[in-house]
């Protein structure tokens, strides 16, 4: 699958939030590449910088306080970061679209849901209002919502349905890249299963690439082909699903696996990662994980380990990676 053509490439992205109380170094030198049709899982704890990466791609960083310190995001041969606002608008919602975490708040409460879907169509396609409405109806049916509910308002829908509408909104222009920022975290498992299933089907049908942001390895295992683990604004490990799950190399990734209670083998003791993620406004030198790392050494605290390729596609940022294939 690695032969496919690259769709988007994030190179050395650094984003800081400059606040009076200090500068939050949210994203530091992150590089990612996605191929057409692929699903990449971006996994990490709260505050690791996942959403910041997504917003950078969308060009939706809140500008103050956010500042892009370095990096470029190459999409269709252009650096998105350098585009004018007008050009960005053409891409947004059209070629790249995004689903946000909380379906409860992602919809404008005073607009009819159908209109909200049609809004995107009218923005990017030269169609009449009527056609746009028709298209919106079609896509509603596609995500499993009867088109008759076009004129209803968000509060008349349940969480799962709202999330489906949000997804419909994102997919309405057949984007090449869909960024899904924790699309199911707010949903119940049975609903999550429905929504994930739907995303998978749509992906198959439309061939969209998906950047799936989550902190749930279960979802990753089910949805993704490749995974990047992000910790305190840095990628600590990246690779194929297999590489990450079977040949976990970074102590942090391993720690995450060990802290998960498992449905399968019931009485395995949970091994939590001690301590907590460092404050992005006050990052340590060296390896950001050093304080919590069971195998930390002197040099880990001094110098930042490079993101080394352990084997093709499997990148690990650690002086002492655990295992490799």
């Amino acid at each position, binding site marked *: 699958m690695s032969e496919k053509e690259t769709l988007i490439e994030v190179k050395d992205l650094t984003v800081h939030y400059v606040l009076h109380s200090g500068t939050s170094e949210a994203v530091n030198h992150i590089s990612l590449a996605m191929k057409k049709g692929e699903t990449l899982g971006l996994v990490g704890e709260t505050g690791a910088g996942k959403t910041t990466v997504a917003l950078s791609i969308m060009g939706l960083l809140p500008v103050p306080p956010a500042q892009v310190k370095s990096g470029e995001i190459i999409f269709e041969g252009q650096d998105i970061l350098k585009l004018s606002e007008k050009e960005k608008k053409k891409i947004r919602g059209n070629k790249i679209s995004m689903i946000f975490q909380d379906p409860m708040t992602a919809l404008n409460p005073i607009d009819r849901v159908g209109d909200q879907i049609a809004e995107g169509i009218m923005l990017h396609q030269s169609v009449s209002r009527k056609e746009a409405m028709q298209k919106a109806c079609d896509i509603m049916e596609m995500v499993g919502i009867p088109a008759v509910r076009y004129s209803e308002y968000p509060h008349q829908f349940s969480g799962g349905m709202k999330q489906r509408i949000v997804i419909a909104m994102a997919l309405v222009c057949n984007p090449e890249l869909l960024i899904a920022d924790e699309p199911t975290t707010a949903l*119940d498992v049975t609903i999550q299963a429905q929504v994930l299933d739907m995303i998978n089907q749509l992906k198959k049908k439309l061939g969209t690439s998906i950047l799936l942001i989550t902190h749930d390895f279960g979802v990753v295992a089910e949805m993704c082909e490749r995974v990047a683990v992000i910790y305190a604004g840095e990628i600590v490990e990246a690779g194929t699903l297999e590489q990450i799950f079977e040949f976990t190399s970074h102590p942090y990734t391993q720690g995450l696996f060990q802290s998960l209670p498992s449905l399968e083998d019931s009485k395995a003791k949970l091994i939590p990662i001690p301590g907590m993620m460092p404050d992005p406004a006050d990052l340590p030198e060296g390896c950001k994980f050093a304080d919590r790392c069971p195998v930390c050494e002197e040099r880990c605290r001094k110098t930042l380990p490079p993101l080394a390729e352990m084997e093709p596609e499997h990148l690990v940022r650690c002086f002492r990676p655990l295992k490799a294939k």
Partner: protein
Amino acid sequence: MENLLKVKQLKKYFDTPGGTLHAVDDINFSLAAGETLGVVGESGCGKSTLGRVVLHLLESTSGQIWFEGKDITHVSRSELRELRKKMQIIFQDPYASVDPRMTISAVIDEPLRNNGMKSRSEREEKVAELMELIGLAKRFTDYYPHELDGGRRQRAVIARALATNPRFIVCDEPVSALDVSIQAQVINLIMELQEKLRLTYMFISHDLSVVKYVSTHIMVMYLGQTVEYAETGDLFAHPVHPYTQALLSAVPIPKLGAQKQRILLKGEITSPIDPKPGCRFAPRCPRACEQCHQEIPALREVADGHMVACHMV
């Protein structure tokens, strides 16, 4: 084993603008000292309400509750005061459940003060003791909640719950708001404390793997009602109710190739307001038949200690 808590035909209805909301509708269970009852179910199925009713934070609509062998369905003020020392609650959101204007020590101190521990030095000592017990470093004494991360806040909340030496604690999704790495710390703490202090838990969660990890017994709720109740191992090994089965199958497993046969349910949990007669799950049930839409299935024992409410088994 002695039954610490027993609940019989417990109901809690709310009057809402739209009609009567059956938040908890005829729940029965008993819980022995030292055990943990895991309560799972979808959002809005009445888990929290059940916990609150048991603790008398809400008055039940009908039904009975026994605690330590005593009927506590209706208690006087003074009895309630005594009762509350023995029963405590830990909430989901460690931010919302502590007063943002109190320091951590004040938070832990509050139950001591409220329950008649007069001497200041004694209280300070006890606070220090509790902080040590739950693994909060002394330096956090005068921190405000918002200055702490979720894990530490949740520890403070646990310390507060433990201050009056309760026997029974309702844990209402105590780890759902936490990151996995922190979640594991807190789960471990909760388990350790249970052992150390011989606590009995009612552990509410919608995360099946967590519930499985901490509970001895599990109750699966759907729209205010118990659909299945069994020992943990039993339930996971032999889920009987179609809803339980669907629920189990829906959980994504963080393992490669763990893909199992998914039972995808149609639709979502329906409104608990003035529910229709019949099994509440029937509209979504892949196996529903005519009878399911007519009668509410009774909770029956299908195996030793394994109860199910379904016409089809």
